[in-house]
């Protein structure tokens, strides 16, 4: 796991039970905490819902990428065919039907690439947020991290233990 220069101070709790985790998260959000980080090992609607995020804007990247691909493909083919027009098989110089295939391919290609770019760009992959992490989160634990100074920490620890966290530790 990635080490980092500055570790955000806070409290990290890990849960075995999904419902416990969800309840805790909801409780924290009720308290108005926005800066919670939840770790889990697989896509889970229950948890996503608990975290209550809006729909990811990554689709914009897909859309824009796709459209760019289409325009790029057609403009490229039309321009290149006119740049040095050569006649083949008595077909028109600009033969749109023949260009559809590459139009489609580039739509998909650039669409996919920009989607991927979008994920890397939006989510924190490739960048270390410097929050505490535990290897078991990729296995069968759910982690909840809340940044907190020494003053708030004890309260949070108590809250987590009550909620049924199997382990609570403080990051500083």
């Amino acid at each position, binding site marked *: 796991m990635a080490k980092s220069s500055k570790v955000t101070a806070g409290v990290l709790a890990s849960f075995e039970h999904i419902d416990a985790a969800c309840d805790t998260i909801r409780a924290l959000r009720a308290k108005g905490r926005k800066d919670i980080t939840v770790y889990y090992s697989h896509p889970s609607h229950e948890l996503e819902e608990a975290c209550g995020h809006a729909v990811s804007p990554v689709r914009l990247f897909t859309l824009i990428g796709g459209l760019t691909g289409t325009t790029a493909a057609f403009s490229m083919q039309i321009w290149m065919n006119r740049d*040095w027009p*050569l006649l083949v098989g008595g077909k028109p110089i600009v033969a749109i039907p023949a260009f559809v295939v590459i139009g489609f391919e580039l739509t998909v290609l650039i669409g996919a690439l920009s989607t991927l770019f979008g994920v890397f*760009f939006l989510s924190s992959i490739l*960048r270390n947020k410097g929050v505490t992490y535990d290897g078991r989160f990729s296995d069968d634990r759910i982690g909840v991290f809340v940044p907190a100074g020494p003053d708030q920490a004890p309260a949070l620890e108590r809250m987590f233990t009550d909620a049924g966290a199997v382990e609570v530790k403080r990051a500083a």
Partner: protein
Amino acid sequence: MRKSAWITLAACAAAIIAIAAAGRPSGAQQPSGPVGVVLTASDSAAFKGPRQPVYFRHDVHSGQYKISCQYCHYSAAVSNEPGIPSMQTCMGCHLIIGGADSANQLQIALVRESWNTKKPIEWVRVHSLARHVHFPHSQHIKAMGPNACATCHGDVSRMPQVYKVNNINNMGWCINCHLARNVNRDCTACHY
């Protein structure tokens, strides 16, 4: 953090355009070379272009004495091939002209020797067109006049030693000219 990502994105785009632009060859540059001062064969090493067995100076023949190109390259106006002068053509003048100074005399002596020993001088080829290109010299002279030579070969009248001014095997360079003059650029005009 995010800004940097956007910058990277822009940079990539810029790079791609730059590469695209780079693909376009530039036009011919002007030849450069000292005007006909007296030079000895040993100097020829200093100049661009291959050293020739005989230090033949286009700058003297074409520049100083204003001998027209087609006097020696006799078939340029009538044939695809420009033609290289026979030893007889050289001797036509150098039977009499022996050279003003020792350096020149030395070189002209070589020419006379080759004539006497019937061993033609083996010139080193400067302009060698790819074998799958057919370049009709006659058509270009017909279209651009007898002094069109410099367009491709550079101003040899200022070259003590001939060198390649343009990459004649760069097709784009040919095409630039054909586009500018709006003449035929059908593939089979040159490739067959």
